[in-house]
């Protein structure tokens, strides 16, 4: 592949997966700006992988793997910050310059609802029901069995339901 072709391919990947990766990051870090920054970095690293000639059998899996790793690194840097502070930041209605208010509000509502779940469960629910990963594929990303993933997901949904109904 020469530069032009590689770039075409790369941007096509971006167009296809930008929202998904953003969503993935957002669900895990609960901060829109951080999620956007991380997403950009995911794609930058993906480009590097293309350059290095990594044998890409599954570009989607590679993207998500890069995303997970970057988020893990980000968490490590944030380790000293308290968990409460983290949650507060997430709900902070930041300078919503580009985002319509309704959308922003809904995003906040989602994040709030998701926060009863631990990070792994949030990720599993997102990947399963929004991105269409199979439990086996999710397991491959997280190094868990498909069965463990399925159990986690059903427990997560039950917990969400309970929590949401409790607030009716």
């Amino acid at each position, binding site marked *: *592949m*020469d*530069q032009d*072709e*590689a*770039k*075409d*391919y*790369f*941007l*096509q*990947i*971006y*167009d*296809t997966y*930008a*929202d998904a990766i*953003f*969503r993935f990051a957002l*669900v895990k870090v609960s901060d829109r700006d951080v999620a*956007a920054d991380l*997403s*950009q970095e995911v*794609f930058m690293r993906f*480009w*590097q992988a293309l*350059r*290095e*000639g990594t*044998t*890409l*059998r*599954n*570009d*989607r*899996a590679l993207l998500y793997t890069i995303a997970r790793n970057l988020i893990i690194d980000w968490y490590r840097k944030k380790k000293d910050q308290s968990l409460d502070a983290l949650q507060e930041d997430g709900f902070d209605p930041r300078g919503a310059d*580009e*985002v*319509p208010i309704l*959308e922003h509000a*809904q995003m906040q*509502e*989602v994040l709030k*609802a*998701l926060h009863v779940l631990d990070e792994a469960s949030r990720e599993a*629910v*997102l990947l399963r*029901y*929004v*991105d*269409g*990963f*199979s439990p*086996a*594929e999710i397991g491959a990303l997280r190094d868990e069995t498909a069965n463990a993933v399925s159990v986690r997901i059903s427990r997560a949904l039950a917990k*969400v*339901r309970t929590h*949401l*109904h409790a607030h*009716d």
Partner: protein
Amino acid sequence: MINDDKDLIAAMKQIRLSEAARERMRANLSAYADMHAMPSGNFRDFEVVGFVLSVFARSRPIFAGAFAVVLIASTGAGAALAAEQAIPGEVLYGVKVHVNEPVASVFAGSGEAKARYHAKLAVRRVEEAQLLEEKGVLTPELETDLAERFEAETMKAVEVAEKLADAGDISAPIAIRAELAENPVVERFVAAAVAEDATTATLAVADEVPEGMAPEVATMKRAEGGNEPVEARAMMATMAASDTEATEPPEGALKKAAPEQAMLEAPQPSALRVRVLRALALLDKSVDVEGSTAPAPEAVAAVQIARPKNQTASRALLTGASVSQAAREFMLASTTASSTPDRTSPAFDPALLKQVGREVTPLTSEGDASSE
């Protein structure tokens, strides 16, 4: 308002980057890609080339180096793929014959499978010759070159066929022979050779077996028994025509045909034709069991269907038993009818092929249920 998990999931699906953020990120990434351009030399192609070289570098002489340079200097693995279609005279033909085919042969397995692969390569040489002939560019040198390559391949196949026949496996040689003999290209080639020879009077030789003829011809004559394979007649005609210096021209021929004229005008048998017929004869010989006749086509077909496991049934066929009797034997032995998998596919990983090809298609993973 999110009231239950279904609402939650629906809401999650709607989360996306704002238009502005998305465009901005795209522009940033585009600039980034420009700044960190792909290295010239196409690393991803190098991967494939490196693999190819490592496989055969040990056993090949310096030619490998030269062709590798050609490979790398051109479009890398793209060249290896394009080379599959190359014909003699083209630059990439060297790649095809010295790179692709040896690499693929490594994966051809052993024994019968490998012999069949060599037979397949031999067929390729015939195909190439025909292609060149159609284009009108088949020079004698090219033909001789192809003929020699053909012979190299068939000798390997014959060697295995004979070895297996000696070991008692009869159906493997049949399969190997069929790989060459029953290929439509080869059949056409042989038929054309016969048609050409039919115009010369030396075909009359087929009616007799004069002394002094080459042994292979005598065998073929014997094998003529029931079916009179086309190759046999052509073989003898060709051998007779080429035997001008070796032995005395058979009396029969001289008498039956316009003598000196026939000998003078007999077309120089093509180097390739001679070898094709000779190869077929040798393969027939390996199939030849206990001096019996060459197997009838139905027998060959039946054996191929049933596959090599059942020796008793194979023997039954070849010693003249009827096909139905042989079929009964097959059923008794309850062989599974399986065919040898074709392992002659290129040695490249299909996923890798897709990457280094010119496709720029969005990928889907295995089991990708929904799309974004």
